[in-house]
């Protein structure tokens, strides 16, 4: 017989063949906006690669884009809320709901304590400069929109900034 092969070699298949779905996503790194396909099997990501359908990247990716899989599927990811109490020397894991309540309370306390309705000259300003937010450049526009809406339009925070300023 010709050079024999093993059973595994005959049965070899790309792991994407048995994916439950391939979902179109966009690379989280630079602003070129490469389209990616996220392959899922059993509710787990099994592969992320370039989407050939995209006129931007036509299936290609750069090294960072090609590493997106490890950005998401990574044992070093934080998966619980970590809390550090004032003057504490360690992190504590806290329930998400507790943290959300606590953060909302802190925002309210700080806002109420520092809110300026009018300037010394009597101008209506309805602002606080004691709270600041930073971020958004790797986040969705929907998220950015809610930051601006909640913190500016809702809370009167003026220092709302992101990486675009840097």
């Amino acid at each position, binding site marked *: 017989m010709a050079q024999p092969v093993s059973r595994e070699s005959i049965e070899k298949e790309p792991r994407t063949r048995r994916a439950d779905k391939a979902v179109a996503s966009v690379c989280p790194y630079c602003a070129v906006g490469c389209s990616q396909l996220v392959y*899922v099997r059993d509710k787990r990501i099994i592969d992320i690669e370039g989407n050939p359908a995209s006129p931007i990247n036509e299936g290609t990716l750069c090294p960072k884009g090609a590493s997106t899989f490890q950005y998401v599927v990574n044992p070093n990811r934080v998966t619980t*809320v970590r809390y550090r109490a004032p003057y504490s020397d360690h992190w504590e894991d806290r329930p998400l709901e507790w943290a959300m309540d606590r953060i909302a309370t802190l925002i309210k306390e700080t806002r109420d304590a*520092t809110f300026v309705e009018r300037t010394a000259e009597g101008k209506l*300003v309805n602002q606080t400069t004691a709270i600041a937010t930073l971020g958004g450049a790797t986040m969705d*526009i929907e998220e950015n*929109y809610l930051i*601006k809406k909640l913190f500016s339009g809702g809370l009167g925070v003026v220092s709302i*900034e992101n990486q675009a300023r840097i």
Partner: protein
Amino acid sequence: MGSNMAENHPVGYRWPMKAREKGATIIHVDPRFTRTSATANLYVPIRSGSDIAFLGGLINYVLTHDQWFKEYVLAYTNASTIVSGDYVDAEDNGGLFSGYDPQSGSYDNASWSYAGPPHGPARDETLQHPRCVFQILKRHYARYTPEMVERVCGSPKELFLQVAEVLTKNSGRERTSAICYAVGWTQQSYGAQIIRAAGILQLLLGNIGRPGGGIMALRGHASIQGSTDVPTLFDLLPGYLPHPAVIRGDDTLEQYMRESLVRGGYWSNLPKFVVSLLRAWYGDEARKENEYGYQWIPKLTGDHSHVSTSAAMADGKVKGFVVFGQNPANGSPHAGLQRKALTQLDWMVALDLYETETAAFWYAAPEGWKPADIKTEVFLVPTAGPGEKEGTFTNTQRLLQYHDKAVDPPGDARSDLWFLYHLGRRLKELYLESANPHDQGLRNLTWDYLPERPDPEYRIQDEPSAEKVLMEVNGYTVADHERIPGFERLKDDGSTACGVWIYSGVFPAPGQNLARRRNRTPGNYVDPEWGFAWPGNRRILYNRASADPAGKPWSERKKYVWWDAGAGSWTGLDVPDFPLGKAPDTPAKGQGTGMDLHSGSDPFTLKADGRGWLFAPSGLKDGPLPTHYEPLESPLSNDLYPRQDSPVAKRFRRTDNPISPPGDPQYPYIVTTYRVTEQYTSGSMSRWNSWLSELMPEMFAEISPELAAEKGIENLDWVVVSTPRNQIECKALVTRRVRPFRHNGNLIHEVGLPYHWGYKGLVTGAMANDLVALSEEPNVYIQEDKALTCNLRKGRLR
């Protein structure tokens, strides 16, 4: 120029490389010989910080060699417009323009205005009037000769001339040239002016609004364009509406609109955008009687930019800080001061997938603080990564692309949308009973984003619907909540709501999320059915300029958008960025507002006069024409003007932010910061990744063999790089890709520092941003970190 595209946008660079193979010339002008230089046809070295001198030299070349695109410039730019008699050019005033107030360090730009109204100014079509823009321009750049470019920029004259020839030969009716830039330009104390200089050059060459032309901002983050549009910036409301500010006198909505309104051009619609925004935010409580809730929006009382806020934070004036996927403790200028600022907070919330330097500042910062001395209450909230949520990114071409959800994020990780929605919900509950007038904005904020039916496939059932948010961003009619098809439908009577007017049209009907379109269009390289480009799916802005004044394409090769006389409409490969039925020969009406003030051959619809601005009569705080200044820190004095540096750039004169004076012998070298392909910004998205970390595992300083020899440094030796702010240690990468520049016979050395490392991650290292000063460009408040001065010695810190 100002961009290292091959390294930082490798997939974008796919297209210039394809063009190169088809015969195009790639020119790379950069202080370092990078991967872009290596793959360009022509590499030209330039001293960091001297870009305006180089571009000014090109402008001068184009003018003096009569290489400008006459028909284009005459018809589409303000070359013929006559400027106010009060105007004094920097050329005649030691590098300062008229209107400078040394006391406040700012300009009053009244004298830069046109002679006549902004929308119908006086013109001299012969371009001979001494005060017409063309003549002012000529005079302003007359001294930017090739010899001067060589002297100031260190760029060899022959190479500079080669660039000028290639650029001019590749521009005109048949050909176009594009200029790409990135933070290599913006992170300078006159960044906006550098881009302006490119704009002038491209207008002169007829490269704006045409296929293959333009000035391409290569932005650095997946949706940094989106976060600029929406925006999460202090000085803007969504869609580039100015943020109400005390200094502008925006006391009432009416005053705000009057202050912001531009009579000519599309911005005349501003009231529609503002009222619709307020309607989107405050719903039925936004009524005409209460100025549509205008007063619930805070008024700015000064500079609240990131850099200024950091300074205030360091002084203990900021109590709470929410950080969404950012890393100021490492990625922001003067990172040491940033970390100190974090210690002054009462509380901080950091949202990220990984523990960043910012989240860990209280125990891991290089300052070695004792946690017991730091009061800040810190939350690290785990967030969702790509494929774990849905939503829209806006890429560097203004293209909105929706990404779908594939799986739930792990554990307690949630999307930022989840965090914001549920935080907002809680805050609204906390303020539910408040009768305080200034709490009513929050109480009335429309906040209905939970989906009607959560997707049963996923574990997380209280995830808000990104499409519901996008629907609000798109806009709808208030009466029936029908989505509107585009911003043309917006009204200023409160009958429409729209979150971000420039995005209007992205989601015109249920099931028609155009950002989620993923179709190719054979035969049309614009691919109009892939995603949605704002505004109104236009891929090239001002594309009316791709046709001549009569509406015919400048050339068959470069046809893009043209007037179809038969159909009485503009048509082409792209959505025409022009009123569809407005014929080329439509004269401008002498009165009225908006587009009526423009003729059928005024392509620049957002400008008051419909023209491309060679000379900027308004809108800039540091001059109507780009002018060469030295960086705030420079080893050289300004060769062109007595004025050394930008007269209006903001320096933070604080004891913890010393800035070297010009020619400081203690800090004789230029230092510039940058990124490499293998890592990403401050590293929080790449240094936890073994595949990337192994490719660029350690911090290094790139120096020339000449500097290495001077200092006795061998490749991979440890070196200490210092500025008056701080000092760091890293390994030296000695390479001929870095070169010293010769100035008046002296060697001016440059040091290159990537800024990817920090103290958390699989690989760690010194932070280049520790060396950077707090400073601000006056228009956009960006720090200068592309050209600073430093010292360097062999050895280690201790």
